[in-house]
């Protein structure tokens, strides 16, 4: 062998070695970013942080939560949809992931992202929404409220976190299932929506249980029914709308982990394994207990089925709501 060829072979090996090593490097080799598309202190954020902490333990690699807020979550979701599908950028999405593209479509807008741009990893939690009214109001059961709404269409008001938001869609699903018409007063977020009902400016509110539980316990608000499949653990005497006969009124504010479509299968498998282990971690369990959010872990086909059914319900709901302005 000539000296030239020897040098060439050595150089080739020297260059190829790190590349080969990188190709073999197990996932994850860099810190992972979980994007929470809502401001700090919100449901997505508070779920994302324990998940990230637990996954960090399982994967033995740093997992950081980054808040990318804006446009009711659209900014963060669009960011992950368009980022590199290498498994280092993940999204913790709420049920609004199915709502936002539908809303864009009915306004003839270029959707900020589509659900197909994501591949689901796992469902973490699914907060059933509950219907609350003020303690002084005359309705003691959901049935009474619905009957009253039938007699006085459009008179009973409710607040929400924003149009086409999760709290709005929950009420819309109920309205369609029960054939009633309620008066919607959108607010700028879940906090103002809660303030509105506490101040007596609206009659009803659909809310995640955790925020209203203290007010129910102190007697300011009364829970009437829930949108879940099963009764809420903290309020066992409150029936579900399913039990009352409105099986279409099923709504969860769920939080799930997603990755951009195109992420390689082995990476996805590793992530799914990691989330399964993460939700079993005792610290994670206690963190979720403190937040009074039940863990509802679903993966693979189960999650896919749940997600598809939920997305279909919500998309139909959004289309039924249509453009609010056109109905005036």
């Amino acid at each position, binding site marked *: 062998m000539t000296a030239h060829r020897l040098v060439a072979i050595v150089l080739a090996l020297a260059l190829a070695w790190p590349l080969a090593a990188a190709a073999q490097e197990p996932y994850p080799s860099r810190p992972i970013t979980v994007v929470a598309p809502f*401001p*700090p*202190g*919100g449901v997505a*954020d*508070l779920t994302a*942080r324990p998940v990230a*902490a637990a996954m960090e333990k399982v994967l033995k690699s740093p997992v950081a*939560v*980054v*808040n*990318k*807020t*804006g*446009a*009711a979550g*659209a*900014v963060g979701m*669009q960011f992950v949809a368009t980022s590199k599908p290498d498994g280092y950028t993940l999204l913790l999405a709420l049920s609004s992931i199915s709502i936002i593209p539908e*809303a864009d479509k009915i*306004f003839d*807008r*270029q959707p*900020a992202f589509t659900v197909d741009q994501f591949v689901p990893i796992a469902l973490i939690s699914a907060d059933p929404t509950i219907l609350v009214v003020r303690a002084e109001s005359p309705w003691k059961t959901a049935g009474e409220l619905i009957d009253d709404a039938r007699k006085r269409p*459009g*008179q009973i*008001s409710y607040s929400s976190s*924003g*149009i*086409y938001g999760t709290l709005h869609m929950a009420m819309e699903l109920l309205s369609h299932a029960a054939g009633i018409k309620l*008066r*919607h*007063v*959108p*607010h*700028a977020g879940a*906090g*103002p929506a*809660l*303030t*509105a009902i*506490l*101040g*007596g*400016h*609206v009659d009803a509110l659909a809310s995640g249980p*955790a925020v209203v*539980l*203290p*007010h129910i*316990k*102190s007697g*300011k608000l009364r829970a009437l029914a829930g949108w879940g499949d099963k009764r809420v653990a903290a309020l066992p005497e409150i029936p579900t709308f399913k039990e009352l006969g409105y099986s279409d009124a099923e709504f969860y504010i769920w939080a799930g982990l997603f990755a951009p479509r195109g992420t390689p299968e082995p990476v996805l498998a590793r992530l799914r394994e990691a989330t399964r282990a993460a939700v079993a971690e005792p610290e994670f369990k206690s*963190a979720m207990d*403190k*937040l*009074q959010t039940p863990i509802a872990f679903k993966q693979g086909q189960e999650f896919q089925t749940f997600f598809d059914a939920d997305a279909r319900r919500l998309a139909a709901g959004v289309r039924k709501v249509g*453009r*609010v*302005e056109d109905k005036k």
Partner: protein
Amino acid sequence: MLDTLGNLALGFSVALSPPILFYAFVGCVVGTLVGVLPGVGPLAGISLLLPATFGLDATRAIVMLAGIYYGAMYGGSTTSILMRIPGEAASVMTCIDGYAMARKGRGGAALAIAAVGSYVAGTASVVGLMLLAPPLAAFALRFGPPEYLALLLLGLFVLAYMSSGSMLKSLAMASLGLLLGMVGIDQMSGYFRFAYGRVELGDGLGVVPVAVGLFGVAEILATAGLAMPPQVVKPRLRELLPSRSEWRESAAPIGRGTVLGFLIGILPGSAHIIASFVSYALEKRLSKRPEQFGQGAVAGLAGPESANNSATSGAMVPMLALGVPSGPIPAVMLAAMMVHGVSPGPMLIQQQPELFWGFVASMYVGNVVLLILNLPLVGLFVNILRVPYPYLYPAILVFSMLGVYAVNGSVVDVWIMLVMGVLGWVLRKLDFETAPVVLGLVLAPMIELSLRQSLAMSDGDYAIFVSRPIAAVLLGAGLLLVLLNLISFVRRGLDWRARLALAEKGEETS
């Protein structure tokens, strides 16, 4: 009374224990830092440090986060006074008279007055929080959309008092600001307005990039190119503290600002910046020398600075008394409480007395810490002005762009800041005021939302504004103020004509 003292003693025993003291101190220092940095405000600071509190217990976490919150209000005035760059959105009003004072060589005095005013406001408002939290919170809850609209319309009216120059030009600027506030998603109907496909504009232009751009960047664009850099009179050591007359002038505005800021802060959904704007207008209205405003009036600095500090404590009233967030910052603090297993709600004060009273006591302590931190630093900060301007302004630009970027991690914010910077530069050249633009930007979405929410609540009936007592009273007060001012305006006009007529007659006969 005895109960309160007993509880306070409990609180102090918690607050003065070394670990709590340490976290309060850390919070105050970080808060001051965050406030000094342009653009990065208390919300950004608290959000960034929220994860760091997860390992602590509830009291420590809340104490630290609160320290960041009111610390930022102290720090925000520093860059506003020295360099006319708002440290955070609420400090915009301080940029006006505070900077003018600095130009006259009274920068140290301005910083000291701001620090003391913030201390008095912070402490007095904590007393209010401590004694009156539950009844005030219940009152605040009765402010629904119609009441808000009435209040905000009064706030719009305040714009008339902000102008030192031509009122017509200020109104034009206010209209511009109001119009800029219309960018973003319409929360009542879901339409994207004027966003041109950019999802980042969905929440509107953002008051931080606009304020930093209109005031800070515009200032640099205007002064950096001058042959002579801005003549800042460098004060001597003796002149660092306010003179006796300056102290006297600031006493009443501090008192008024405290009460005003506290009341505005209690209302869920109000912003600190509104408290400082209203305080500025009030001081100008009550001043015996209103023409001084804009040229370095002490009252124009002391009032707004106190107002935005007491608004901080005010904002915590609904949070602690009812478990209801009055804004994004209390929402993060509530979340911090929930994460630690403390369920916020109406029973918090009874069920968690150590938390509540420890927190209240830590706020007293924190305010003292901040006063001690800020006063000696006055000398240090004023020395920043000695840095040669060609080195200083690139540093300011770097900090401004960094701060604005850091809030949302979005380059779109930096672009907004630059566009607003150019606009602010042009407006300065053409002798227009920029403060009404910021006020309009903040008020417009709130006014529109309140109006449409009220009409949604009443199903299109405008009578809702008069059938609700608080709204009716506020609207009536507003109408009265408008009438009074119209009358004095007309009278002045008549006077002017009469004087002109006399002068002409005088000329004819002479």
